[in-house]
């Protein structure tokens, strides 16, 4: 069984009978390079380049009858037509989907690539493709243009032209070397300084006892930008190193036939990620400019509106509702003393926090200063910073509501827990911690009497605690919801795969998600097609994020937890970890970046 890979549009404009020249490596099929005239082929053979590069005559092509395979008789022939990828435009074929996230973070998004692997393996087994080395053949196809270039050079005997090109390049390099080196040095020093600052900031923000990243979304945003900044030099080096090796390949073909085997597509995911990040930052800043201008223009109106809204929502409404609870709302029979005590406690806290900071912060003057800060931040650092500051501002202002929520949740939870224990006592049972089960137990009379008295009292007090808990849960939710929405918008702006989506539209060959073999006309002829990444695969981190959110907030277990009184918190870091999948866990050390940068500049 032989596989012959045939570039599309090879036959165009060719007449008569031609020799089919192909190349192959061990375990791969034949890749047809060109259809040559007989004389051309014989001159090639004479020059000895056929042996050197492995160009082989595998058959004949007639304009009337097509291709006849002559290399080895009596074998089944499969003809696979493909569109030659242009590596310089970063087009290539790949068996696996191109990695949009870092491979070590693949587990976070539940690895769509892993599934593909499996199906591929099955495909291998089914059609016994393993023996002909599909992977190697695909690599060979990716190198098509290089092989073709060599063939052209060999057939033109253009050795001297090649060397002249080389010397020209060298000469040009010599002219520009000095000022370019100086500039490069400057750039390197700047980069190292920036990297050092960013790395220090990241370490500070993630310092253990007080992990600022978990509290404040501004800190999270700074952390994200610093991480991106730290990763830039590394990405840049990776992209440029492969490019330089590619150019060296082009120049010295003679000596290194082995180097051509090195796959040049390895840095393409890095390229995509790098430019995606840059683009997103540019986008962010341009959005930020317009938002900042808008805010600055309507500063007074917004300040008045916000002042009015904050005073109404954070003070008057909460005050009103809490007062109402102490007067048997809706005819619900609360325990008067307890309700009075709780509502007095909360009212006191509300009054205190209002007079201490809310009143001052939400004064029109303060808010307008705040808005000008936000608009400046938005102009300089992008709209995400403005959003992050706004989120932090809101969560700071609603601190008293969160506090009430946590207090009432704790009380409610304790009450339920105690009631459960006393219920066991009521039935003459006791929880056995050692065996993690409920055992019968003989209680003393005084234990029984006290337990039952407390149980009765707690049952009568439960509705009061419950209604306070419900009220503050609702308040807390209504505060959390806008914060969550804002943070989701931030996540969109920070991590949206814009570049990939545009590539998908512009040139799907650049983001391969696998290959497709299509039979043509029933014969042993196939067409090799690129299967670009689907939208689902591109947006997979978002799907995972949404699923996590749904898992965290809209499931039965969450509902049960709320019912039992477990306090709910935003596990911000855990949730957005998915979106950090294009960044390494720990930023690289400055010294490492320094050495690699220096070696890059000196090379």
């Amino acid at each position: 069984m032989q596989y012959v890979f045939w570039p599309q549009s090879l036959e165009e404009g060719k007449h008569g009978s031609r020799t089919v020249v192909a190349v192959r490596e061990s375990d791969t099929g034949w890749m047809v390079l060109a259809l040559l005239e007989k004389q051309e082929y014989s001159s090639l053979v004479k020059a000895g380049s056929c042996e050197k590069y492995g160009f082989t005559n595998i058959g004949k092509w007639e304009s009337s009858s097509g291709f006849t395979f002559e290399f080895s008789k009596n074998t089944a022939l499969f003809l696979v037509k493909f569109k030659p990828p242009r590596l310089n435009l970063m087009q290539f074929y790949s068996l696996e989907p191109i990695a949009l996230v870092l491979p070590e973070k693949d587990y976070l998004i539940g690895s769509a690539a892993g599934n593909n692997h499996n199906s591929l393996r099955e495909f291998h087994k089914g059609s016994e493709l393993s023996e002909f080395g599909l992977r190697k053949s695909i690599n060979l196809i990716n190198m098509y243009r290089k092989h073709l270039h060599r063939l052209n050079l060999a057939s033109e005997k253009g050795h001297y032209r090649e060397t002249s090109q080389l010397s020209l390049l060298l000469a040009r390099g010599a002219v520009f070397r000095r000022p370019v080196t100086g500039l490069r040095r400057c750039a390197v020093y700047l980069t190292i300084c920036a990297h050092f600052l960013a790395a220090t900031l990241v370490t500070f923000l993630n310092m253990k006892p007080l992990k600022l990243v978990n509290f404040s979304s501004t800190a999270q945003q700074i952390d994200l930008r610093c991480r991106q900044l730290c990763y830039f030099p590394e990405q840049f080096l990776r992209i440029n190193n492969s490019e330089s090796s590619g150019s060296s390949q082009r120049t010295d073909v003679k000596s290194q036939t082995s180097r051509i085997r090195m796959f040049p597509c390895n840095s393409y995911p890095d390229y995509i990620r790098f430019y995606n990040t840059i683009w997103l930052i540019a986008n962010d800043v341009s959005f930020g400019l317009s938002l900042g201008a808008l805010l600055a223009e309507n500063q007074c109106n917004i300040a008045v509106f916000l002042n009015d809204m904050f005073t109404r929502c954070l003070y008057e409404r909460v005050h009103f509702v809490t007062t109402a609870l102490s007067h048997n709302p809706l005819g619900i029979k609360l325990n008067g003393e307890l309700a009075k005590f709780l509502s007095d406690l909360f009212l006191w806290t509300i009054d205190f926090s209002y007079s201490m900071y809310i009143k001052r912060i939400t004064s029109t003057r303060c808010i307008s200063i705040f808005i000008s800060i936000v608009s400046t931040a938005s102009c300089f650092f992008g709209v995400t910073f403005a959003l992050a500051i706004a989120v932090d501002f809101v969560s700071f202002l609603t601190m008293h509501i969160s506090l009430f929520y946590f207090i009432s949740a704790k009380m409610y939870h304790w009450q339920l827990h105690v009631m459960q224990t006393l219920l066991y006592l009521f039935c003459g049972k006791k929880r056995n911690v050692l065996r993690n089960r409920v055992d019968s137990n003989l209680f003393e009379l005084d234990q029984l009497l006290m337990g039952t008295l407390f149980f009765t009292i707690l049952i009568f007090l439960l509705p009061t605690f419950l209604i306070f808990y419900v009220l503050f849960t609702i308040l807390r939710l209504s505060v959390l919801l806008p914060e969550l929405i804002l943070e989701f918008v931030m996540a969109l702006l920070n991590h949206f795969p814009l570049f990939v989506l545009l590539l998908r539209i512009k040139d799907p060959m650049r983001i391969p998600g696998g290959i497709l073999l299509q039979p043509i006309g029933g014969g042993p002829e196939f067409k090799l097609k690129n299967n670009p990444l689907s939208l689902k695969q591109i947006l997979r981190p978002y799907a995972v994020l949404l699923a996590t959110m749904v898992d965290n907030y809209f499931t039965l277990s969450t509902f049960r937890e709320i019912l039992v009184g477990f306090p709910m918190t935003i596990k911000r870091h855990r949730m957005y970890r998915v979106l950090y999948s294009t960044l390494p866990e720990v930023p690289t050390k400055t010294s490492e970046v320094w050495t690699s940068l220096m070696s890059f500049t000196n090379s």
Partner: protein
Amino acid sequence: MEPRWKRLLWLKQEFPDNHTDPEFLREVSQLQKVEQIARKPSSSYQQVVIDFLLLYHRVLNTGLMYVTFTLLYYYRCDPMYFTGSLTCLSFLAATLFHYARMSLKSPLIIIFSMLVLSPVLKSLSRTTSSDSIWTISGWLTLFYVTSVSVRSQSIVSTNLLVANVAVLGSRLNSTTDVFCFLLICIELNVLLPYFERSLLERKLFIIYGATFVANSVVVYYFVALCLGWIYTTVFAFSSLTFVFGLPRYFLYWQDHYCKNEPLLSRWDAKRPILD
């Protein structure tokens, strides 16, 4: 080994239709022996009447709780002297009978915890209407009597009683009333039955009879005082029927319908259990 016959319809078994299991015959003969020896004297009329009488006594005891409550709630009696004397009496009884289990610690804890909790209890059901409280108390009493009739001395019955007392106590007007009511009820319904049981164990039937008579007199006098003679007569007749008439039916039921015998129930016709 020969396969054993199983009492399952859905199995295809290699036995003739009129097969009689040898196990069955053996167990039937055993059953006859058991009936002759043990069953007849165990449920004599006298014994059953005594059992019913004991239960009736417990119900009367429970009635004492309502008597106390009514006295405090409607008639606004001062409970101080009564409580004091009753407490002294129970301490006296405790020392006289040398209860090993009654140390000084446990009653002190109970008394002080009740002192602390009685203000809380007083305000507990202020916003709840009286009808709901009566309903809750009624149900709790019903559960209590049921649990007592199943097992005369259990943790659940004590707890139900205390819960009932706490619910009723939350209706009273002053903290003193609540405390006294709790104490009286616990003494009458927890300590008194305990005392009476120890009397029975020591075969001091005369003293026991005296407490029983005193108990009945208090309850009947109170019912007559509050509800009038007609209700008292009805109550007396129904309790007489309960103590002397019902045991007959009980025996009849036990003889003809009760399938409590483990041997009998094993070979009886069974109802199918469907999911």
